[in-house]
Structures are given as C-alpha cells and as structure tokens.
C-alpha cells in the first residue's frame, strides 16, 4: 500500500467523522440558525466526499454532482435564511 492508495481512505474517514460531528449540531442546535449552519456545512462535506470518490475511481464526471450539491446547498441556505428573517415579529409592520 502506497500513499496514493491510503490517503483517500484516510480522508474519507476524516470526512465521515466531520459529517457525524456536524449532524450532532444539526440535531442539538438551540436555534434554527444553528441548524441552517449545520446544513450548509453538511453540503460542503458532501462536496468533499464526492471529490474523494473521484480521487479513488477517476470518474471525472462525478464532479458535476458536486456542483449540483453545492447549488442545492446554497439555495437551501438562502431560502431558509429568508424564511428565518421573514418569520420574526416585526413591531414596525405588524400593527398599524
């Protein structure tokens, strides 16, 4: 086993451990904003796992799915943030 074979396995283990750590924040997070941060982080880790998969299998077209995951993660983050901002109690607008 040389370095090129060992390194993707090691980094895959590291990425899965980071995914588990981030999912604890997704479940525990006291506010909705914590959960949105964890969701964004999990999308980035998923891009990293796709990259390691491409490193192992040399199928370059899999990187397109990484682009798609990044797009979905960004759209989800922005949409949830807009929802969080919209759902606050604004004293200036609710009552005339």
């Amino acid at each position, binding site marked *: 086993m040389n370095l090129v074979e060992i390194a993707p396995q090691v980094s895959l283990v590291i990425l899965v451990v*980071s995914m588990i750590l981030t999912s604890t924040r997704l479940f525990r997070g006291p506010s909705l904003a914590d959960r949105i941060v964890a969701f964004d982080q999990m999308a980035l880790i998923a891009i990293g796992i796709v*990259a390691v998969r491409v490193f192992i299998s040399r199928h370059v077209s899999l*990187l397109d799915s990484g682009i798609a995951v990044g797009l979905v993660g960004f759209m989800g983050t922005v949409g949830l943030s807009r929802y969080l901002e919209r759902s606050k109690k604004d004293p200036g607008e609710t009552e005339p």
Partner: protein
Amino acid sequence: MSQAGALILILGSVFVLLAAIGVVRFPDVYCRMQASTKASTLGIGFLMLGVGLHIRTVEAASRGALIVFFVFLTAPLAAHVLSRAALRSGIPLWKGTKLDEWSDSEQAK
C-alpha cells in the same frame, strides 16, 4: 505529483474536520458560522487541488476550478444572508462579544 495530490487531499479533509469541530464547539451562532464558512471553503479548495493533481486532465482541472469558484462565490454570500437573518430575528450574541455594531446602530436610531 500524485503523492503530492494525496497529501493535499488529507490536508483538505483535515481543514473540513476542523470546521466541523468548530461548528460543534463554538459558543455562538456567529462563531459557528465563521468556522464553517472559512475553514470549509479552504478545505474544499485543497480537496479539489488534490484531485486535480492526482488525475491531471483538463476535464478534472476545469470541473474542480468550477467547484472552487462556485464555493468561493457562494459561501460568504450565504454566511452574510444567514447572519443578517439571525441578528434581525433576535438570536443573542455570545457574552464575550466585543464589537456589536448592529445593536449600537439600533440604539442610536
């Protein structure tokens, strides 16, 4: 060259792990957000650099550069939108926060 790519792959995943530890351990939404945004962005950049150094074709390099460009473009934007939404919905700052320009400008109104 391929072994350099392998080393850079491990380096990038270590940065992503540091970001995850920061997301779990930091005391505040805003601290967690900066850990997630900065360290993960750098980690994704290193991972794509490692893949490009390992495969060394134009397809891999261009797609990796596209992902890196996209993440570098969207991660600060998402963090900005999210932090503004968190501040405006009244999520409290950490008690050790030194500079709070938002609350100061709200009081000055």
